[in-house]
């Protein structure tokens, strides 16, 4: 109660300052908040480029129908970067300069996000929930770290947890990893190296190129190396082909996957070969009985979209939208970019209607959640088989 006076005073001062010709916050009007999203809409990851924003829009529309955030409707405008960092920067400039968005949201891919770091700092514009699980997103030694609010558990942490889990399953396990030879894989390897040091073992590592369609050599090697547990750092196609190739060679280790392999189409596409595949995920499943997932399914059905779109990636777009909306709610009626940053820093243990373990930010903390659950494929469907693991 004691605080009320200074707060009113500050509010009054800011009000007068605002009247004295202060520019309004870009992208914010009395009725609308404009946010910018850059997706890969026609490049190698365009599959995600459609699913993620669709999911986000489900939630934004839901909020808008309820009257919006502090009376403002959320509108999302999109650009395409084709997984090219340079196009990402151009698109970000366009969003900031031309479209005058309030904040950036959900930009996909590690290198595109890394490439726009200098811009974030220059413009003081926050980027909420970049759609990459790379641990480097919350690295505080990098330019513009202050403006990036990462929601997901890093690939490095996931890899670390998966190695632990493998040893938990079988103390004499021999772990191997097959990873994508790019920034994603690099981050996975960081986690692996950490786990190696902790367990005092060497883990067999096999790389493949982004876009590869044949993994015979790598799978052969894992077989020869006698790996009993194989961690797959791929997206959708890679785990399917890896598991099928292994099955064709009569090699049957326990496959474990980093969260991007968590799509239900991996379960569908790999068929028998993918039976028993366990993947990590940083959130509850879209078909779980949490409040958030129920809301998602309800909204999805109402939207009348092709049911094939429903799935983990679509749901991922949905849940990160919840985080952004939470931040906007907290930032209050008078919305500024700094205000959003402050508000997000105040988020502690936000569980997104039971979907997350708890998203926590602080003045020096941008990591979001750090826990995963494990999901298993059985008979073409996925179910959660563990509690939250940190």
């Amino acid at each position, binding site marked *: 109660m004691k605080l009320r006076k200074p707060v009113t005073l500050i509010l009054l001062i800011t009000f007068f300052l605002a009247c004295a010709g202060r520019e309004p916050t870009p992208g914010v009007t009395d009725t609308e908040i404009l946010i910018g999203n850059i997706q890969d809409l026609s490049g190698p990851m365009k599959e995600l480029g*459609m699913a993620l924003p669709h999911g986000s829009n489900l939630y934004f529309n839901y909020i808008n129908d309820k009257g919006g955030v502090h009376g403002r409707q959320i509108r999302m405008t999109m650009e395409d970067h084709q997984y090219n960092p340079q196009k990402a920067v151009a698109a970000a400039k366009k969003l900031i300069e031309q479209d005058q968005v309030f904040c950036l949201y959900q930009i996909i891919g590690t290198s595109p996000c890394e490439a726009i770091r200098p811009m974030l700092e220059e413009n003081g514009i926050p980027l909420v929930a970049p759609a990459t699980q790379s641990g480097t997103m919350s690295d505080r030694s990098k330019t513009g770290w202050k403006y990036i609010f990462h929601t997901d558990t890093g690939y490095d942490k996931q890899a670390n947890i998966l190695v632990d889990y493998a040893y938990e399953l079988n103390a004499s396990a021999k772990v191997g990893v097959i990873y994508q*030879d790019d920034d994603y894989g690099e981050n996975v390897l960081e986690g692996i190296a950490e786990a190696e040091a902790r367990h005092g073992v060497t883990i067999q590592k096999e790389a493949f190129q982004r876009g590869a369609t044949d993994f*015979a050599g790598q799978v052969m090697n894992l077989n020869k190396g006698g790996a009993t547990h194989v961690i797959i750092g791929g997206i959708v196609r890679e785990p399917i082909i890896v598991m099928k190739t292994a099955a064709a060679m009569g090699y049957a280790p326990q496959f474990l996957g980093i969260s991007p392999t968590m799509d239900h189409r991996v379960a569908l596409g790999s*068929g028998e070969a993918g039976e028993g595949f366990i993947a990590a995920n940083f959130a509850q499943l879209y078909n779980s009985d949490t409040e958030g997932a129920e809301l998602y399914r309800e909204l999805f059905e109402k939207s009348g979209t092709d049911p094939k779109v429903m799935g983990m990636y679509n749901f991922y777009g949905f849940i990160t939208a919840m985080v952004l909306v939470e931040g906007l709610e907290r930032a209050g009626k008078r919305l500024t970019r700094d205000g959003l940053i402050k508000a997000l820093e105040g988020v502690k243990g936000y569980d997104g209607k039971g979907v997350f373990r708890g998203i926590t930010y602080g003045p020096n903390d941008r990591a979001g959640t750090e826990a995963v659950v494990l999901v298993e494929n059985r008979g073409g469907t996925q179910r959660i088989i563990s509690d939250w693991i940190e």
Partner: protein
Amino acid sequence: MTDMLGGLAQEVVSGIALGCIYALIALGFTLIYKATEVVNFAQGELMMVGAYVNFFIVTALLDIPMLDGALGFLLAFAGAVAFAFLFGTFLDLIINRPLKDEPVFSVIMATISMAIILRAVMALIAGPMTRLPLSPFGSGVIKVGGLFISVHDLFIISSAIVLVCGFYYFFNRTKWGIAMKATSEDPMAASLVGIPVKKVYRNVWIFSMVVATIGGVLLAPRTLLDTNMGFLGLKAFPAAVLGGFGSVPGAIVGGVIMGVIETVSMGTLSFYFPWVKEINDIVVWIVLIAVLMIRPAGILGREEIERV
């Protein structure tokens, strides 16, 4: 030691299967290059189009009770090939005809833009989702003396061999094939001796589209179907060059060499020599450059000698 040899043998088998995929695409490159000296950068995309057309027909036929099995697949395949005929004609009409007097370079650029267009159009029609086509040959695996090979791969290998032999026979024994060869040597002289050069060009585009469709249909279950599948064309390109651009047997020789090198260097080589891991995705390129330094026109290619 036996372990290593066993592994190597398995990798060679897998490599041959992979190489035959490259060979199927390389064959498409070769056919067009042979007659028109154009490198068709859209070859991978043609394959993608063929695979999608086949997939669409299969999906449509799934609803008809009689046609949801092998018969349906055959029908869909026939449909895709029929489409390939039309589409090949169409490509010849819009790429080859208007540019027939322009430098080859322009035609190559036209094929690059055609690749962009085909990818975009297919994405508009099919959407961005990866499709999961099922192999018409099931997921069976044959085991011969410790070596595994899937039935599907066997079909890929045999169709590559059949196609290459067929085209080899065609170019060397049949009237039309020889006419095509003559056209590639000297279109002017060919038209003077009564070879309908325009028709030859059109047929070449049709053939290459048909080969691409066959390749695409066989490939889709193995690599899954999305509109970026065409980038595999960029990997088959070195295979075609290694064998000798414009040489039909060269396509399969180059393809298989590429496939085996790739698999073995990713496999056994990386396993026993860890430093190979650092370079295993460029081993094929190093081999290719080395071969070209010794034989500038590829293994089975002919060097052209210019008269002064």
